[in-house]
């Protein structure tokens, strides 16, 4: 019996050792295929091929971060911007003039406005412009004023009284060319004409005609390097007429409340066909 126990114990330890050895053997031996040739194995008949060390992977160039498009400045134009502006206009713009004289709005902007002024009068000088106590033609006045921005709201008188839309556009060609000949640096800002009060419409001057005229003005500005300023849309009622609350005389003239809006929208660069902040005035 003692011999049998001794054998069992021996066998047990033998099994443990085997187990341990097997584990180590397995972990330390890699099974290779029969035809495996080590990389550094060289026969006498073979050239030594030096395998260059693989080049380190190149560092990828930095990815350029795209420069963001500058956000256009859409902030309202302040009084300072209007310092070298001149406003040409008829009796409708005289309201703007009076409003600004009373409130100080638009800073030192110059007003060259008079009753019954028109594109036609501007080229014939039937009604001269008045600046510093002297009469001027439209072509000469900006030489003395030094203005760099010339705003115009004209045409309501022309369309009704002086030959209609087609003739008025011919007059615009002549007017702009005449002023540019003397003062080529001046930038022109042509405002859309206000609608008229519904009961004052007649075949020679109605709101459909004024809309058509304004569209032609817009195209004229594109073709002649002028800036179109769309102001009229703020004063229309549902019938495309001058709204009751903005009309002072059931005709074509506007109230001070309307003029306040007018001034606000002159400051709004989004009404301009070209952002006026990005025009070179020199």
């Amino acid at each position, binding site marked *: 019996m003692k011999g049998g126990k001794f054998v069992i114990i021996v066998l047990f330890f033998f099994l443990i050792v085997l187990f341990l050895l097997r584990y180590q053997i397995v972990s330390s031996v890699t099974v290779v295929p029969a035809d495996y040739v080590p990389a550094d194995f060289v026969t006498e008949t073979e050239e030594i091929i030096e395998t260059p060390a693989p080049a380190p992977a190149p560092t990828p160039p930095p990815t350029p971060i795209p420069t963001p498009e500058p956000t256009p400045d859409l902030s309202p134009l302040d009084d300072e911007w209007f310092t070298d502006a001149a406003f040409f206009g008829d009796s409708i713009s*005289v*309201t703007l003039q009076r409003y600004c*004289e009373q409130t100080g709005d638009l800073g030192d902007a110059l007003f060259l406005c008079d009753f019954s002024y028109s594109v036609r009068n501007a080229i014939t000088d039937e*009604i001269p412009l*008045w600046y510093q*106590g002297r*009469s001027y033609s439209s072509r000469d006045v900006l030489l003395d004023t030094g203005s760099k921005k010339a705003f115009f709201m004209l045409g309501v008188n022309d369309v009704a009284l002086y030959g209609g839309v087609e003739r008025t556009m011919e007059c615009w060609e002549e007017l702009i060319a005449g002023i540019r000949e003397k003062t080529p640096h001046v930038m022109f800002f042509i405002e859309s004409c206000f609608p008229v009060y519904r009961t004052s419409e007649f075949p020679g001057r109605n709101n459909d005609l004024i809309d058509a005229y304004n569209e032609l003005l817009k195209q004229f500005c594109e073709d002649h390097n002028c800036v179109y300023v769309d102001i009229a849309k703020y004063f229309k009622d549902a019938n495309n007429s001058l709204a009751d609350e903005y009309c002072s005389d059931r005709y074509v*003239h506007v109230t001070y409340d309307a003029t306040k809006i007018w001034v606000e929208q002159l400051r709004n660069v989004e009404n301009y066909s070209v952002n006026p902040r990005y025009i070179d005035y020199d």
Partner: protein
Amino acid sequence: MIKKVAVVLTIILCATVLFGCGSAKSEVNVDVSSIYNEILARTETPEMIVLTEKRMMNSYGIDSSSCKQAIVAVCSDSLRTDEIWLIEADTIETAGKYLATAKACIEQKCAANENYLPEQYAVAQKGKTANYGRFVALFVSPEAERMLEIFNSACGK
């Protein structure tokens, strides 16, 4: 005795002539603000806007530095041609220049209104100007005549 009387009379006559001439040449000396306020109080005047120095210069070439005092007022109603000027210039020559400007202003108003606003044309046609020494006045108003009377009265004319 007769000679003494003659001498005394001559002295009295010369003194009278000298003082008389002095009185005839005495200048107008009035406050334009007071005249303006009186005009507003005593006539039917619409709401007026008194122009700033800058706008006086831009519109009419009236340089405030060449004026001892100046009020240039326009009607706030853009469809009315009413206007009032009351200016004391620094010199008689400057006053003459502003008088010419005032007359040209009335002509401009007539030209602008003749075929446009007949009522305003009629008002502009009756516009008045006045000049006493360094003082110049312009009145374009349906009551221009009355305004001129007030001005003349203030100036002792």
